[in-house]
């Protein structure tokens, strides 16, 4: 339990400035930020990448690298974190302020048991016998909701799921009863259904442990679900600070308004889908471009062990000019299906016909001519461009490979047209990929994918690495290009709201199986399968009042599911 009474000031930041020395000169990451958090309160710091939110969070624990120069006051209790010596800082870390990191799989050391790692924090701040430390570890694991903690205290991190690992990371933060927990994007690496559980746990930390929580996130839904007060950061400054309800209902600053408007929500795409369906019906229906029947894809296992079945008996089809949205959580096999249609992964069983070519046992030699008609947009725009080629050279690659141009210079006029189509200035063609922002790179990636005017475009989570306002623009561009060029598309995403915006039909994957398929209205408004229902209910909406109601619905849904499995068992 926190040593502070509820409502007492746990953290105060006053006029914080942070400057980094980089190869490109000094960069001011945080400018004149002043914030405070009381115990038993969740302060969310929201902002896009580069807004300085993570730097602010790291300053609280004195975790900035040596290249940073800091000024101002960060007060935890009576200690100004910026000025106190290292030895005192070490005492404060853990007992005064603790951190929950974004990626639970890298925050835990894979060669030690989780119990040992929880005890490590205890040993750093006091004398505990082995048995005492173990008892405390078991106690805290039980309290963060790890079942069978007596045994699992001796498990290694890889024996837990992602959500459980994040629970253990939170347990490590809680075990020393810190006054403040800094949670840096604690749910970004997790699936939505797991995200809802972790948010519940953080809420319990606030209520039961009376901890002050600083929540760093870019997800407005998460903010609406958990935060009491919100600070919006933009280019290193706090542009708006308000309690959650008034921020979402009456945003003051222009940037906040734009940020909220850019958040996709379910139901936005219904009218558009209907329009497109009417358009398509008027045109020619034609042969479907992709037909999957009982598709099975396995990844080969190690010697002596069976393979891993990533996709298990999936059937679907994509017609001409149609956008199929493929939704699922990590490990559901959605990316594998996309890669298989693109010829990057082999089919194990069943049948998959792409543009009339059977992919079961196909040779690269036979498939290569068809690649002409397939475009591919990858998830991470940062790695999908050769860093040593300019954007123009990258976009020209498909043209050169398929003999439409001799070299990059000859293809330049066509490349300029393509860049224009994705709303990038011509001069950007001469830049190198790292000189573009994530959204600009993803536009260039779209330009490369449509360079040969393909009949089919596969987009594998094209916006999941982007900020929400950038995502909105890229999605709009995608819809526009699809209307203009009329390609069919497989749009893969974990975000139901994003898929809803673009897709004509939505297919929901769960553990390699297709559980539900239909139009946006059918799947999102009246979901039949319990998994789809849970997925929908877990998706937080950017409205604190509505979200509180949805949270209750989800709890009821989960309870009834538990009861079902209970009677089954």
């Amino acid at each position, binding site marked *: 339990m926190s040593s502070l009474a509820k409502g007492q000031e746990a953290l105060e930041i006053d006029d914080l400035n942070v*400057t980094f*020395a980089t190869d490109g000169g000094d960069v001011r990451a945080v400018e004149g930020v002043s914030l405070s958090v009381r115990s038993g309160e969740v302060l969310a710091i929201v902002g896009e990448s580069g807004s300085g939110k993570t730097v602010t969070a790291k300053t609280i624990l004195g975790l900035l690298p040596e290249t940073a120069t800091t000024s101002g006051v960060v007060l935890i209790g009576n200690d100004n974190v910026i000025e106190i010596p290292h030895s005192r800082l070490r005492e404060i870390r853990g007992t005064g302020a603790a951190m929950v990191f974004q990626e639970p799989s890298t925050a835990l050391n894979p060669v030690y048991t989780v119990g040992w790692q929880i005890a490590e924090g205890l040993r750093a701040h006091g004398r505990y016998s082995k048995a005492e430390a173990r008892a405390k570890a078991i106690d805290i694991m039980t309290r963060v909701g790890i079942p069978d903690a007596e045994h699992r205290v001796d498990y290694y991190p890889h024996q837990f799921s992602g959500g459980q690992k994040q629970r253990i990371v939170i347990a490590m933060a809680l075990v020393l009863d810190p006054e403040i927990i800094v949670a840096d994007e604690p749910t970004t690496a997790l699936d939505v259904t797991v995200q809802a559980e972790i948010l519940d746990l953080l809420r319990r930390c606030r209520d039961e442990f009376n901890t002050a929580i600083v929540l760093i996130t870019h997800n407005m839904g998460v903010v609406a679900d958990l935060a009491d007060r919100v600070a919006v950061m933009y280019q290193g400054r706090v542009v708006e600070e308000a309690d959650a309800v008034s921020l979402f209902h009456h945003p003051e600053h222009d940037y906040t308004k734009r940020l909220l408007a850019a958040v996709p929500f379910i139901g936005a795409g219904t009218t558009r889908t209907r329009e497109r369906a009417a358009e398509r019906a008027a045109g020619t229906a034609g042969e479907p471009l992709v037909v999957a029947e009982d598709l099975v894809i396995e990844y080969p296992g190690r010697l002596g062990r069976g393979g891993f079945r990533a996709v298990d008996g999936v059937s679907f089809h994509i017609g001409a000019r149609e956008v199929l949205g493929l939704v699922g959580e990590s490990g559901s096999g959605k990316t594998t299906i996309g890669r298989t249609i*693109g010829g990057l992964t082999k089919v194990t069983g069943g049948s998959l016909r792409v543009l009339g070519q059977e992919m079961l046992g196909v040779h690269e030699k036979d498939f290569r001519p068809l690649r002409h008609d397939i475009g591919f947009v990858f998830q991470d725009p940062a790695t999908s461009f050769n860093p040593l080629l300019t954007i123009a050279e990258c976009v020209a690659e498909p043209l050169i490979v398929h003999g439409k141009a001799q070299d990059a210079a000859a293809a330049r006029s066509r490349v300029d047209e393509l860049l224009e189509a994705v709303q990038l200035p011509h001069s950007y063609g001469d830049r190198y990929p790292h000189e573009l922002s994530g959204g600009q790179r993803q536009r260039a990636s779209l330009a490369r994918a449509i360079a040969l005017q393909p009949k089919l475009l596969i987009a594998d989570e094209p916006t999941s690495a982007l900020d929400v306002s950038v995502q909105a623009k890229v999605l709009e561009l995608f819809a526009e290009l699809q209307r203009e060029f009329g390609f069919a598309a497989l749009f893969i995403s974990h975000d139901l709201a994003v898929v809803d915006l673009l897709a004509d039909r939505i297919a929901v994957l769960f553990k390699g199986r297709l559980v539900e398929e239909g139009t946006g209205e059918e799947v999102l408004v009246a979901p039949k399968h319990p998994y789809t229902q849970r997925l929908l209910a877990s998706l937080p909406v950017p409205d604190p009042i509505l979200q509180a109601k949805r949270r209750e619905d989800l709890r009821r849904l989960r309870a009834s599911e538990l009861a079902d499995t209970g009677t089954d068992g």
Partner: protein
Amino acid sequence: MSTTTVVRPSIWSRLPLVRQLAQSVGWQRGMLVAGLVIIVVFLLTAALAPILAPYRFDQLRDANGTFGAQLPPGGAHLLGTTVGGYDVLSRVIWGAQTAVLVIVVAVILSIFAGVLLGLVSGYFGGWLDRVLVVICDAIYAFPSLLLAIVMSIVLSGGKSSLSFGILAAAISITVVFIPQYFRVIRSETVRIKAEAFVESAKVIGASNARVMFRHVLRNSTRTLPLILTLNASEAILTLAGLGFLGFGIEPTSAAEWGFDLNKSISDVAAGIWWTSIFPGTAIVLVVLGITLVGESLNDLADPRLRTRHRAIASSATPTEVDELEEAL
């Protein structure tokens, strides 16, 4: 979206070494500069050997008759003469030329073979990869000097003229170095093969050769300058070792530091220090210089190891710069 053009630095400042020099600060810069100075002096000495050296490397007499053996430093022979009657200073200066030749030939021979094998092996994998890796590991298991001796005997029967001597030394060094380039390029290739931009080239329909040479090769050569410098210093040591053991180049064909050291063993006990100290120092200095450059390149290539100037808290943000300009 802004349409400002990116200011690209001039070609000169993007050259390797020049860029790193500009990037470095503090003691890292000191190391790099010291190494570069030593290397430049070494290269100049090699290039200007005919002008700098008072005598030829195989000269035993001048107008006044023979030099005489084991003369102490001073007079006509600044660093004295060897037991064989050669001028020590001239031998040390001419030795730089031999060293440069061996480094250049050895590195060129090994880099092409090593890089190509590594690329093919890493990209295609399979049985070819396994066979090549086993062969390279086998070569690793050999003491490199022993291998060099065997090669030198096979190639030239142990001793020979300048060109054959250098080639023998270079090829024996090459055999030892190919696995290093192979290993480095192979592991980089395996890593890059899984990157999204290689897959995006594949889905476009690019051929294997195009993917390999246009997309993988150029991205996998990042660490080459580092191995290159480290191998260059190792090449000199191997050459000196060969010469010291008597498998080097005849004194009448070229000057070679290792050979001179070998001939000076008996002098050391007799208190004749100048025949061994000077060639020995030359070897140490050149190896030190090249290693310093290599190590600094390694540190600078890694953002975590690179030191930077500390940021000034009140340093100029764009708006402040504008204000400053207005005030001026």
